């Protein structure tokens, strides 16, 4: 019991320190440095990229991003607009990429005839891209780049 109290006290000393670690940095919030009593001038709403050109995936398991506009596409109990082009039956006519086979699997790995209910809501993973500058710099390094560096270092 005494030990517990000690740990508690120790934590209460440490916690404010850990919290302050997150504070410095360029982007704290989308409000940036606007003072609390003022309204920040909103930025221009960027346009959705509508190029229809597939973008590279950053890692093999990345859900592909959507290269076209999806304004007013309904994905709900009644209908799934995405599937009117990307479903197995529709791809011949639409020439859109078919949803991958993993989408037909239930959680036990059984293949179903239609896309699995757990994969029904496309926008949970697949998103459109905006024509805008990123808020923070992306430091992501492709694993192939790392492997290349490694093999170069070994030589």
């Amino acid at each position, binding site marked *: 019991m005494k030990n517990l109290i000690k740990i508690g006290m120790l934590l209460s000393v440490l916690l404010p320190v850990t919290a302050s670690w997150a504070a410095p940095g360029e982007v704290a919030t989308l409000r940036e440095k606007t003072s609390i009593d003022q309204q920040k001038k909103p930025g221009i709403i960027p346009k959705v990229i*509508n190029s*229809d050109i597939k973008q590279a995936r950053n890692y093999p398991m990345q859900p592909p991003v959507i290269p*076209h*506009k999806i*304004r*007013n596409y*309904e994905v709900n*109990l*009644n*209908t799934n*607009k995405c*599937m*009117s082009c990307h479903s197995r039956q*529709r791809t011949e006519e639409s020439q859109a990429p078919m949803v991958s086979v993993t989408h037909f699997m239930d959680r036990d790995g059984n293949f179903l005839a239609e896309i699995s209910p757990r994969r029904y809501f496309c926008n949970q993973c697949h998103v459109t891209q905006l024509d805008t500058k990123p808020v923070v710099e992306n430091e992501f390094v492709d694993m192939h780049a790392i492997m290349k560096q490694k093999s170069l270092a070994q030589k």
Partner: protein
Amino acid sequence: MKNIIKIGWQTLKKPSGYYSLGALVIGGFIAGVIFWGGFNTALELTNTEEFCISCHEMENNVYEELKTTIHFTNRSGVRATCPDCHVPHKWTDKIARKMQASKEVWGKIFGTINTREKFLAHRKRLAENEWRRLKANDSLECRNCHNFDYMDFTSQSQRAAKQHSTSLASGEKTCIDCHKGIAHHLPDMKGVEGW
């Protein structure tokens, strides 16, 4: 009854004994103008958005849904109102549609869709009516504004240009075949071709 008709017919058949031909012709002309003008004004009054959404069935369901779409608000401010898409512009077709619409008055009186639940239950049937109409008239109401001959494929997205320059151009498909649910939410699309 038979006698009344007979007397009425004889009165019509007989030449006028009191009024001059001129008075009758001019009077008939003026009465005609008032009659026709009144009829058309009343007709046009029912052809406005305010009239449509004066019923809560329209205002709370379909009008609310329209508000989020590009046909309600967009960059250039051109917008489609209810009759632009749902009433033919040509007079004879318009009258035919208006006569059909008398059934909608019946529906209003008996509250066929007077709750959200009832509306949703009937949605598929209602949507199918409109799809059938637009399919039959080659999406005439779309084409009142969207003229195929003046479409610039180069300023369309690649996908759109491809489909418009093939299926639509050949007449194999019409607007409504692909553009269902552009102005209102969709019903259960199970079994609908192309979905």
